[in-house]
């Protein structure tokens, strides 16, 4: 008697759940985004939000998007779970530091599909995606190598994590390929986003003889500092030309729109499956903004390099890659370092005259 009533309750609950599920299927697909910075950062989070808007434009009434901005990485689990709990069918978490919380929430909500940017942990309902920014950084390295008159180029880094280190190496290898004597100075801001400090970091580099600056922090402050001193820089994540019309040589633009639209379509079609996507120039996930403020021969070189990387003829980390101490890195890819080696890069290449903070 007792057990039967339990079964009855369970059956009722199951029927209710089914009908709720059926109703939800006819509703809009709700898509949530978690950003690490403000959408107004002009950089990383801003570009993800451009991707979100592309989804809205492509699917109109069929989708509904929400975003939570400036979510601290240490406290992101609540924000992610909140989205999962409020009926979102697809959730994008857009910073490396959101990895563990995303994995945890994904385990709790198997019916919600998750997409984590720049991470490496996947699950049946959790995909990862990232872009090969180092391809763009090789190109800007070549431009820097040609444009530097002082022979010293600079780099403002956020944190010494593999993604940033690989970017510095690609930048330097590019510069070295056109100017074997080039030197590089690296300054860590130890922050992704602190405009005033990023500006100070750039000024410190400029004061010490650097005349071309690349940055891997999110605000336009470093390139703006270069503009104020009549030197050169590169836009990061988005086109920063309006902040530095005379200084910006080009910008490495993150283009998430195509990927976001494709993944949304997959969910709507029911063809979504857990995957790992790492696209570069060829996949249009990394886009170079127009080459400006440089002589025609440098521009031509940049365009040729871009085409060579796009077609697969050139890999920034083609073997042999030599570490600072002169030791050659084992070549695990075909003719170049493997994806895993690039994603886990924790050494400087030979010629970088700096000690990597560990």
């Amino acid at each position, binding site marked *: 008697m007792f057990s039967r009533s339990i079964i009855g309750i369970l059956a009722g609950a199951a029927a209710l759940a089914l009908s709720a599920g059926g109703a939800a299927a006819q509703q809009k697909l709700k898509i949530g985004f978690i950003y690490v910075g*403000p959408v*107004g950062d*002009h950089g990383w989070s801003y570009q993800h939000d451009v991707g979100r808007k592309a989804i809205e434009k492509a699917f109109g009434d069929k989708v509904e998007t929400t975003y939570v901005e400036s979510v601290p990485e240490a406290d992101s689990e609540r924000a992610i779970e909140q989205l999962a709990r409020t009926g979102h069918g697809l959730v994008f978490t857009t910073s490396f530091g959101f990895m563990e919380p995303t994995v945890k929430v994904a385990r709790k909500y198997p019916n919600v599909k998750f997409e984590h940017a720049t991470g490496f942990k996947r699950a049946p309902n959790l995909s990862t995606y990232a872009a090969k920014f180092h391809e763009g950084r090789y190109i800007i390295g070549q431009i820097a190598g040609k444009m530097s008159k002082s022979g010293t180029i600079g780099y403002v880094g956020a944190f010494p994590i593999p993604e940033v280190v690989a970017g510095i190496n690609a930048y330097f290898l590019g510069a070295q390929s056109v100017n074997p004597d080039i030197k590089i100075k*690296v300054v860590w801001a*130890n922050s992704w986003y602190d405009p005033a400090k990023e500006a*100070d970091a750039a000024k410190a580099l400029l004061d*010490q003889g650097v005349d071309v600056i690349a940055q891997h922090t999110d605000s336009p402050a470093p390139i*703006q500092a270069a503009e104020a001193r009549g030197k050169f820089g590169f836009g990061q994540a988005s086109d920063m030309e*309006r902040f530095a019309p005379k200084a910006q040589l080009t910008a490495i633009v993150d283009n998430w729109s195509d990927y976001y639209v494709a993944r949304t379509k997959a969910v709507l079609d029911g063809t979504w499956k857990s995957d790992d996507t790492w696209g570069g120039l060829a996949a249009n996930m990394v886009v170079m903004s127009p080459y400006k403020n440089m002589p025609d021969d440098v521009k031509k070189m940049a365009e040729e390099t871009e085409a060579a990387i796009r077609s697969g003829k050139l890999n920034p980390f083609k073997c042999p890659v030599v570490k600072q101490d002169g030791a050659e890195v084992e070549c695990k890819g075909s003719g170049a370092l493997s994806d895993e080696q690039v994603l886990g890069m924790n050494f400087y290449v030979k010629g970088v005259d700096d*000690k990597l903070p560990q």
Partner: protein
Amino acid sequence: MTTFEAILLTIVTASTPLLIAAMGELVTERSGVLNLGVEGMMAMGAACSFAAAVTFESTLLGVLAGMVAGTLMAALFALVVLGFAANQVGSGLALTILGLGLAGLIGAPFVGARRDPVPPIDIPVLSELPVIGRLFFEQDLFVYGSIALTVLVAFYLNRTRSGLMLRSIGENHASAHGLGLPVWRVRFLAILFGGACAGLAGTYLALVYTRFWSPGMTAGRGWIALALVVFAAWRPGWALVGAYIFGAATVLQLHAQAAQFGVPSQVLSAVPYLATILALLLLSIRRGRAVGAPGSLGLPFVPDR
């Protein structure tokens, strides 16, 4: 320009917003009110000044708007902590959160806009002097203003009747009230002054330091200003020293990295904060007690109690 001069110039830029904000908070705290909302008032100052400067294409109106924004935020705080005798710590924290949020809202249409730099004032002949020339005689108006502000605040607090009144209210508001001093009015004005200064500091960030606006660009400088007041033991002169030590530590660690000293950058980044803690420690050892805090600091004032 030598590297040395260049470094000194950057230090001045890094220190000025800290000094301006700290000076405002110092006066507020000397009157016995603890306003933890500096960060929020700064953010509002940055957003409103930038919005006004871009809209009206005028730096002057930008500066005014920044100061008015800070003052209005402070007035709200004053209403809560003076009018309703609410808890100052809680109200101040709320003000920070409110300020950061409101600033994001006000600034949203101005994301991506840019301003041309505010030209420095070039004092002829003197600015040609070696080393000190550019350092002392070719800065923007804010820098000179911040130094003048320090001198004026020091003079006001220590040499005027009104300053004495403000200090005695901060030390013991019950006695001051008993003597017939206008506790509320003085505190209200002191809070407004603090807000105007915080707004001006935010203005400096948005119009001079980075010349664009983006949410969260104050990046904790309001909190550093609060720490500086404690560091300075509530004295204007020491706040000036502290602001420059902090600015110098921030800038020098970046130069140390660029010069490849081989010290981990994480350690160098922590240097300014370590310097603050060390200074606090030294100060308190020397005097052997909680240094110079106004006696009524943070306590709500209710006359009939």
